[in-house]
């Protein structure tokens, strides 16, 4: 790890002022569960680290009758604890499942909601120093000819082959959450899915945030009691899911009024799936099965990760089943 300047501002305005416009010059620090390992491995080398943990409003969680507002530095434990206290999990089960799926007590204690959403990919080529696009000296990707068992099956036509690792993002996307962003240019609100992009060239990041922009909160504005997240996670304890699916449903007389679906760990971004085809139809096992197959139709697996196509279909089916059952 390189030496760096450390700042601990008390307000968002101050924090934003301490961030550089230049990508990589500065880094916001919350729980540090990802940033510190990135710095230790010299994958990022910020000159200044700006801790957000002194900004009290960022650690607040507000649960209303039909609104949930989660500050960016709310820890995963605090999020789950608030769920026990005021039962927000019953209103947004998909988010509850996703948060509860992060099985490490240490990560839950230190990791924050904002940090979870903006953590860097776990691609082993990236983490071993081959760059986010895992290119060799000639600019060709090592991934298709390498070991890509965990890599993308969607959105991988460009140079990015990694998968986005966030557990919470697919759930928030399915639930229609918004993210609040603050920069010196002011406050803006975007849909959670709009936080992400697949980089197209070396040096590009996988998020749409400007270098001097902070994620301050995510907001859910509508209750979605029929929702669920299903993760295909090999180990019972801490492990990365191979794929995950989040669904949120509104039913009307047994028929689908609205449905939102998002997949995790299948693409360089969390991967929203168009569920319009379900609207107006009854949601039985056959319909869910057909939807799951259709949802994976456009998948472009690499030589050794076609199994993830199958797993994603299973995750969709099981997420729907869980949402309908209300578990």
């Amino acid at each position, binding site marked *: 790890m390189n030496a760096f300047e450390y700042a601990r501002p008390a307000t968002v305005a101050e924090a934003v002022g301490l961030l550089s416009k230049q990508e990589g010059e500065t880094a916001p620090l919350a729980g540090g569960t990802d940033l510190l390992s990135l710095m230790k491995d010299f994958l990022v080398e910020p000159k200044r680290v700006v801790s957000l943990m002194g900004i009290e409003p960022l650690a607040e969680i507000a649960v209303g009758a039909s609104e949930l507002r989660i500050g960016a530095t709310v820890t995963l434990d605090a999020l789950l604890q608030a769920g026990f206290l005021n039962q927000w999990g019953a209103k947004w089960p998909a988010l509850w499942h996703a948060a509860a799926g992060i099985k490490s007590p240490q990560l839950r204690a230190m990791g924050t909601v904002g940090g979870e959403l903006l953590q860097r990919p776990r691609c082993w080529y990236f*983490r071993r120093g081959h760059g986010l696009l895992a290119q*060799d000296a000639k600019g060709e990707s090592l991934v298709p000819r390498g070991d890509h*068992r965990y890599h993308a099956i969607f959105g991988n036509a460009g140079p990015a082959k990694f998968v986005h690792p966030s557990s919470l993002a697919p759930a928030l996307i399915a639930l229609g959450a918004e993210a609040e962003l603050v920069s010196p240019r002011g406050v803006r609100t975007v849909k959670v899915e709009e936080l992400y992009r697949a980089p197209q060239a070396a040096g590009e990041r996988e998020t749409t945030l400007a270098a001097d922009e902070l994620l301050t909160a995510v907001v859910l504005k509508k209750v979605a009691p029929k929702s669920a997240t299903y993760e*295909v996670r*090999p180990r*019972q304890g801490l492990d990365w899911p191979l794929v995950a699916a989040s669904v949120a449903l509104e039913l009307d007389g047994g028929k689908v009024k609205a449905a939102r679906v998002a997949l995790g760990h299948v693409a360089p971004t969390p991967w929203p799936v168009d569920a319009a085809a379900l609207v107006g139809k009854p949601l039985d096992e056959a319909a869910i099965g057909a939807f799951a197959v259709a949802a994976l139709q456009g998948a472009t697996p690499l030589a*050794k990760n076609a*199994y993830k196509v199958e*797993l994603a279909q299973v995750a969709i089916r099981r997420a729907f089943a869980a949402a309908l059952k209300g578990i």
Partner: protein
Amino acid sequence: MVDLAWPDPNDCSILGKRTPRIDGPDKTTGRAKYTYDINRPRMLWAKFATCPYGRAKVATLDTSAAEAMPGVVAVEVIAPVGTECKVHFQEVACVAAESEEVAREAARRIKVTWEVLEPCVSDDDVEMAGNKAKKGKEQLTDGFDAALAGAAVVSETEVGCSILTHCCLESHGSMVEVAEQDGKTAVTAWSSTQAVSGVGGEFASAIGVEGSQVHVICQHMGGGFGSKFGADLWGALAARLAKKTGRPVKVMLERDMEIALAGSRPSAFATMRVGVKDDGEIVAWESAAWGSGGNTGGMGAPGLPYVFGNIPHKKTQTTPIFTNSGNARAWRAPNHPQMCLLTMAALSDAAAELGMDELEFFRKNLGLTARADVYREELAIAAERIGWAKKWIPRGEQKGVVRRGLGLAMHTWGGGPHTSNVQCTLHPDGAVEIRCGTQDLGVGARTAIAVVAAETFGLPLEKITVLIGDNRYPQSDGSGGSTTIGAISTATRDACVKAVNQMLAAVAPELNAPAEQLVAKEGMVRAAGSTAGGLPFADACRRIGAQPIVTMGTTQRGNGMSSSQVGGVQMAEVEVDCETGIIRVVKMVAVQDVGRIIDLLTTESQVRGALIMGVCAALYEERVMDPTTGALLNPDLEFYKLAGIADVGELDVHMMQTDEHLKRGVIGIGEPPAISPMAAISNAVANAIGARVKRCPMTPDRVLAALKA
């Protein structure tokens, strides 16, 4: 007088009972100091610049920036220009600096340019390995073709397992201090080693001093599994740099180098055919096996078929593959778990092909093993404990999404004792000290020694002081091959029996009894069989005079003291989600013969630990290499996956402790229970899903592929 022979089990107060480790509290509270924990005044940290490729030649090397960095005290080049590095993370240069951080940064500032060469990291594909695969000669017994042709059923199996690494929780390394004392060089080496008495010479020769000048200390170690016999380059460097700088130097590997270089277990794959008669009798075995242990090839003994070595007609062939990856080191029963997987899978498939209950099939063929009676007894106990008769469903009969399966495997091992020497000091105040230059690789060495001494002197455990992990104590061989417990227990018994008998002789006149009739039991010295009179132990010891009694004991072989050769049976029950390919181990049963047990709790713990390692190998653990760069992709505990406690399932351990077993004496238990788990789990999965998963670890992709095949 006390006999050397192990006392009657019914007469024992602590020997063979469940005794918690005496150093357990030290370990759980952090009071125990591992090599990694040793920090000395003015100590330097050493870190490495390493090769980032699987195979590359050092074209240019510039250490000037590192040398110029404040805090850097010494830089040593290991791979000068022109050296061909043959494995990712191979050491190029080493930096010793005032702090760990400075050393790490300085190592990064060593500039190397590389002539990158094509690596071979394909350890599972003979074709792809090309001329790196050295095809061995076919071994053929007379009548093989006729036997196979005459078989009622010939089953075919293809299965294998990936390379694992030792991945010791405490990485490899040493902390070495070189001082001038009384005109002589004195070297102190704190080394994470499984050979305390033997490793000193390597430090000595690294800096040209005599072995007598090296003091080796290893009070506690965080895992070795067979990979920590030598000082290695890292220990030698610590010594060289300590001599060069005149300051203590700590060289401990970082996790990535630990996984890359500090030992691996070879992969093994095979295609096999088994010929059986209608009634299940095995008549022919054919195998073509391949695998790699890195630069050193692979595919060593015990060979195929495993355990069922007496199959009458055999045709076997092996192909070791030489790859650009970290070398193999002995790994808890070298090559046995792999050969067990290959053999037990092929036999299980033969049983399934024949439509025979797997348990029945193995029973039927026990005559082909070296320990049929023991296995028969163990199979019966294991079957009872896992509920085989009730739960067995023939392979392929289940149709649901989640299916359950049973599988079994059998293993064999030696476990005879190595040479240990033990010194017993019995002080006139009754204090007992035992010294032995052994180490605790996981055996529970301190506890085992204390248990034997306490039993022999008739004292409670806390009255015994055990001193180990230091080469100034009497010589004891390295801990490998399950050889330690038989050695240290019998040598301790020998030393303590001699000491107690000297004391009994001294106190006999006062007790008005011949020494022959006296014993030390329950803290008293009195006539055997009596419950009154006599002297408290400490009072009796005062009669030995001002000087302590000092005796030496050594390993006792045979005569019921120690022995070799065990068999073991394990069964697994699994649950497989056939949509996700995720396997859950429901229960493992291990039934093991081990001769006479010193501490039942530690013994059972050894078996449980082995089962957990087996679950890791069966489901999660493997080294992953990039074929293009030859780089290791998972030299970390994030993607070098081990089981968490929730993944382990119920572990049921049964030790064979009938009179027949006890009278054999003490036998080692480190290796044997680590052999069968992977095979038993593989067989259980095949039973559940009706297909053989071709490779361990049985990850979801491989399980789903097997279901489609």
